[in-house]
């Protein structure tokens, strides 16, 4: 009796251990299965981006690596680190032809882009993969549509005009650097530039200018550059202000009247 009871206790004990073990397995397995699918799913998505990152890395290794370093960490005296600058900055620099830079200088000039927009996206993906960074909101179009032009004008005059000028014509900075004109710049590029501060431009992060305020500025810039039809005349004299006006009064006004004096004094 005692032996059987002992045996039975041992059997029950083993059964209990099995049950606990099974229970633990179920919990662990349950937990695992609760979290594992999302991990698997993300990995599946990562595979799709991976190909962009890989393509981006290939371009990077042939065109950017000499100045920005093996892993975008930058090269002393040649190019800054790209860790954490985000894809917006990459796409702005590449799509406006500023990067890759032909030669070191005061500032990379804009020009014909070397890469297609798709390739710029790959490069952006690679840099994004290296360290993330700020991005242009997807609903920029809607933001600009709802923007307040007058509010944008106020913001533009305070934040932008000291370099880009009242009329967006650009201006000189020190030592050969310059703020480019804003004629023919797309909404997205304007946003990217404000967000990432390319070349000598300061960064206007979202805590300085909210996305709505950036959209206001974009709306104002596009208005004065595209919609303001220069009501004052056929020629806007480059919107340079008094310097070209002074040139015009001598080249046009005084010249015409000097010819008139020759004509009048000649007719005696």
């Amino acid at each position, binding site marked *: 009796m005692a032996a059987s009871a002992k045996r039975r206790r041992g059997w029950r004990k083993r059964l209990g251990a099995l049950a606990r073990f099974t229970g633990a397995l179920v919990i662990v397995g349950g937990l695992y299965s609760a979290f594992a699918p999302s991990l698997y799913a993300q990995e599946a998505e990562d595979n799709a981006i991976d190909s962009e990152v890989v393509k981006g890395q290939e371009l990077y290794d042939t065109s950017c690596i000499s100045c920005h370093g093996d892993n975008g960490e930058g090269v002393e005296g040649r190019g800054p680190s790209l860790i954490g600058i985000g894809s917006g900055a990459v796409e702005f620099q590449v799509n406006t032809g500023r990067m890759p830079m032909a030669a070191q200088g005061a500032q990379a000039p804009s020009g014909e882009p070397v890469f297609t927009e798709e390739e710029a996206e790959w490069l952006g993906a690679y840099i994004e993969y290296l360290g993330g960074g700020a991005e242009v909101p997807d609903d920029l179009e809607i933001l600009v549509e709802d923007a307040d032009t007058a509010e944008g004008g106020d913001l533009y*005059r305070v934040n932008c005009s000291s370099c880009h*000028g009242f009329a967006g014509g*650009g201006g000189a900075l020190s030592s050969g650097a310059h703020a480019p004109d804003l004629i023919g710049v797309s909404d997205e590029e304007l946003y990217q530039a404000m967000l990432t501060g390319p070349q000598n431009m300061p960064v206007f992060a979202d805590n300085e200018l909210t996305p709505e305020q950036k959209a206001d500025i974009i709306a104002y810039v596009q208005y004065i550059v595209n919609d303001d039809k220069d009501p004052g005349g056929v020629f806007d*004299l480059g919107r340079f202000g008094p310097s070209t006006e002074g040139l015009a009064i001598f080249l046009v006004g005084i010249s015409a009247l000097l010819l008139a*004096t020759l004509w009048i004094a000649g007719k005696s």
Partner: protein
Amino acid sequence: MKRRNGNADSLMTKAGGELDDRFKLARPARVLMNKVFPDHWSFLLGEIALFSFILLLLTGTFLALFFEPSMAHTTYEGSYVPLQGVGMSKAYESTLDISFEVRGGLIMRQMHHWATLLFMASMLVHMMRIFFTGAFRAPRETNWLIGILMFWVAFFEGFFGYSLPDDGLSGTGLRIMEGMTASIPFIGPWASAALFGGPFPGDSVISMIYIFHVFLFPLILLALITVHVGLVFAQKHTQWPGPGRTEHNVVGFRMFPNYVMKQVGFMLFIWGVVAAMAGLFQINPVWLFGPYEASVVSSGSQPDFYVMYLDGLIRLFPAWEFRMAPYFTLAPVFWPGIVGMGLSVLLPLLYPAIERRFTKDRGHHNLLQRPRDVPARTGVGVMVIVFWLIGVVSGGNDVFAETFDISLNAMTWGGRIGIVVLPILSYYLTYRICLGLQQHDREVLAHGLETGILMRDPDGRFYEVHQPLAEPDEHGHTELEYSGAPVPKKMNRVGALPPTDKGFFKSIEEPSDNGGTSRDEIEAGHK
């Protein structure tokens, strides 16, 4: 209906008689109408200033009807979209209204501004003519002084007008002027506070300079112009030396009908040029500049061109600050701004006296001098022009740097070195060029004109045949006195060949009757 007898002539005579009976007009009118003026294109430059001033009065009156010289705050609700709902002063709002709501307001504003630039530019060109020809010498020093004063009154008149709209650009200009005023030792801060009614920008400066701009300064200008032109009448106009012209006569055309016709035509032409420029070229687009806020300074901010050289001097001057702590600090802007402007007023005023001190020439002069005959004065004039031009370019050095891809720092240093070196260099070069031109005149007087005919002696020597201007002595030299008058340099100037074609749009050359060979026949003969 009864037909009137008599013709227009007798009617005029009758009307003239009636007027003379009442107002005693005949004698002064005769003097005026028979007044003789010498004819030369360079004598018409001052008229450009006079007629653009009249146009300024006319367009300015129109603008004053709609402009509101008040710094009171308001919110824009006009038709220019990017400023709707923006807070601004009433002065700026009314300027926008003149541009966008008032019928013909924009063209009037632009004509007023272009006429101002023309007024200032023509005064400079006129001043250069007077200077380089020595027309400021006795007895006309007073008129030179009045002219210089008028330029500076107009300078401030223009600056005030530029400041009135209270836009972003003009406010920046006012700020610089405030800085200059405040830099004057001891009285500076008080003067600035008095001008702006407290700290900049205050709320009264626009209404104050409005009265200066539309009343006080135009009145001073009008008075000075009256004296200026009156003195030209009283002292008679100067003339170039030439055949029949002496220090004691005036050779030219009568006021009526020649000169009156020319002047009226010229006035309308000037107004036409201003109107055309106002229609074609956009000037001072204040709506792009926004309302003035003390925190906003745009890149590429320049004053109008006549103020720009001062701006340039300020930009070039090193940042040398003199301190006598704790009592006294002299800001660097004092030297180019206040001392520079002071010298720009003073030195031209004193120039006739300075020159007389060097030349010891106290005689009366009614004949002009050619620039080449007074190399030192011409050199000084060119020196001033070069200095002024470097100042103007430096005033716009950021626009230059941006447009032509030059480093702004290079522009500044180029200007600093250039403004010291180039005027001296240009004085020397001008002096030598003047002597060279004189030398050539003397050579022609001594040896005659170059004919372009090359001869060869039996011994092989080549020489060019010269046409003496008078009977030569046995060495082939002529004893002609150098008198500062133009010397003929080409054969056709002495009548040896037909004159060069004078047609402007089409040839008005007539066949000469010397020997019956026309140009066509000569050319046909060569074929």
